């Protein structure tokens, strides 16, 4: 029986790097909160994580009810690409950054980053515990 460290840590190593990538995107939005014409960006975390995990992203596939129907997806674009946020209150100068929403997204993302970190930490701890034979 072989032991895979990758499997042991699960999805959280990919999640951690994607969370930090998302933090960068959100930080960029907030840095450009007063830039005329700047469009706030973000990505769909679930889709991108599914891609990073090697699974096929669950995009809206067109339902095929006959063997001669053509398949296809509703999106039409790269599901992992950076998307544009739809503003609730667009500014007159074309800027779509809403500082409060970005702050909220950043806070949420940071907490989830810490959650992944916590999970990895406890995994490492229990691994060390096993290596030491339980008497740490």
């Amino acid at each position, binding site marked *: 029986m072989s032991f895979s460290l990758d499997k042991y840590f699960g999805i959280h190593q990919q999640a*951690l790097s994607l969370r*930090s*990538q998302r*933090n*960068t*995107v*959100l*930080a*960029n939005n*907030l*840095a*450009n*909160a*007063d*830039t*005329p014409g*700047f469009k706030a*960006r973000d*990505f769909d975390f679930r889709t991108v994580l599914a891609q990073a995990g090697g699974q096929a992203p669950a995009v809206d596939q067109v339902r095929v009810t006959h063997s001669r129907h053509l398949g296809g997806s509703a999106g039409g674009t790269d599901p*992992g*690409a*950076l998307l544009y946020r739809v503003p609730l209150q667009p500014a007159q100068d074309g800027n779509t950054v809403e*500082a409060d929403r970005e*702050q909220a997204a*950043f*806070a949420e993302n*940071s907490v989830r*980053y*810490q959650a992944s*970190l916590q999970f*990895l*930490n406890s995994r*490492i*701890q229990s691994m*060390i515990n096993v290596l030491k034979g339980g008497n740490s």
Partner: protein
Amino acid sequence: MDLFRVFDIAGSGMGAQSVRLNATASNLANINSVSGDPAQVYRARHPVFETVVAGLGADSSAGVRVLGVVESTADPVPVYEPGHPEADEAGYIYRGNVDLASEMTNMISASRAYQNNVEILNTSKDLMLRTLSLGS
């Protein structure tokens, strides 16, 4: 390195907002500057921001920079003050076109945006330090 780009981004945001604060300070300091020549009088200055685009990748933008500082085109305000040493032959002096209310709102907006960037920086730093101590 991708992980540390968030610091550059938040730093560029802080830099840009502090240029804005400086411009506001200059405008407020010169709010009572007068001149006998409307072409010579102080004009309100405002920085214009621009997104820094680095590369063509999915998350290509990397912060904000000050594109330039524009002077307000609003007309200087003529004031009839024949006794003033700077007054022209018609007895007028010209006040700068600094609008106190808009400068104050600009200042609040700039300081809030600056705080947002500081917050991002602090949170990212915390997350990174926690990541560094992973497993200990």
